[in-house]
């Protein structure tokens, strides 16, 4: 039975996290789309350790790191989340379960009223998932990335009151293996 584990970013996982983060596939969907050095990443880890509002995790499926999941503004009414898949293997349902775990972790905090995200308008996979599970898109926002590109980002917002129905829709397209992983995920906080 597959198991899902969230492990905080640390020096132990810095090598592969940085390798994933610096792939063009991941960078092109980020507002900070620069190539990050190990020195910068380690400085980021130091900042992260002092910031209770942000949490960054490596997601392990069984023993293998497969993705990242991260949150900002934890403890506030609006929590922002994001994720990216690192593995090159096709793990059916992984993206859906990252959303489910992300929402569950955010809404486990009683202060959280809404879960927010922004997706580059051309990043079709998350757009498709968000549409499919019934998340409403907000008005597109034009942003300038760190490298100077102008990119339209689509904001999404999930209110706590809408979580149960969105969760039910997401579970309809979650394969059995990922449902089991979702039912038993753990975070090492």
């Amino acid at each position, binding site marked *: 039975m597959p198991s899902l584990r969230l492990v905080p970013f640390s020096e132990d996982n810095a090598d592969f996290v940085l390798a994933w983060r610096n792939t063009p596939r991941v960078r092109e969907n980020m507002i900070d789309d620069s190539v990050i050095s190990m020195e910068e990443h380690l400085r980021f880890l130091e900042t992260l350790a002092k910031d209770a509002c942000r949490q960054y995790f490596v997601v392990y499926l069984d*023993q293998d790191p497969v993705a990242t999941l991260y949150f900002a503004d934890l403890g506030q009414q609006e929590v922002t989340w994001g994720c990216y898949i690192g593995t090159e293997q*096709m793990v*059916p*349902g992984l993206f859906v379960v990252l959303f489910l775990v992300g929402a569950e972790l955010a809404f486990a905090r009683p202060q959280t009223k809404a879960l927010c995200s922004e997706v580059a308008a051309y990043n079709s996979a998350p757009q498709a998932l968000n549409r499919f599970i019934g998340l409403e898109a907000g008005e597109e926002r034009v942003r300038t990335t760190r490298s100077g590109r102008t990119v339209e980002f689509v904001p999404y917002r999930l209110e706590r009151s809408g979580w149960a129905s969105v969760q039910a829709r997401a579970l309809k397209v979650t*394969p059995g293996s990922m449902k*089991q992983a979702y039912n038993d995920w753990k975070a090492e906080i």
Partner: protein
Amino acid sequence: MQVRALILEMFSEALEATDATLACPELSDDMVLLESGLDSLGFAILVARLEEELGFDPFVEMIDAVYPTTFGEFVRIYENRQGPN
């Protein structure tokens, strides 16, 4: 219906459900799944639909799950679990 034929049928359904199109003239065994035109939602739909039709998700039962990279590997995972038709 043979597993391969069912997978091909469900693959087309998943493409349609996600408004996607096949990124190659036809699905061959060496087609890299991530380059097939089906996105992550599409694969979730594909495996969930196959589970409805076949009654199993082969990835549940794997002790050390081996996830496919190509279409041929994907089909073989189902064929191996299903056994000979």
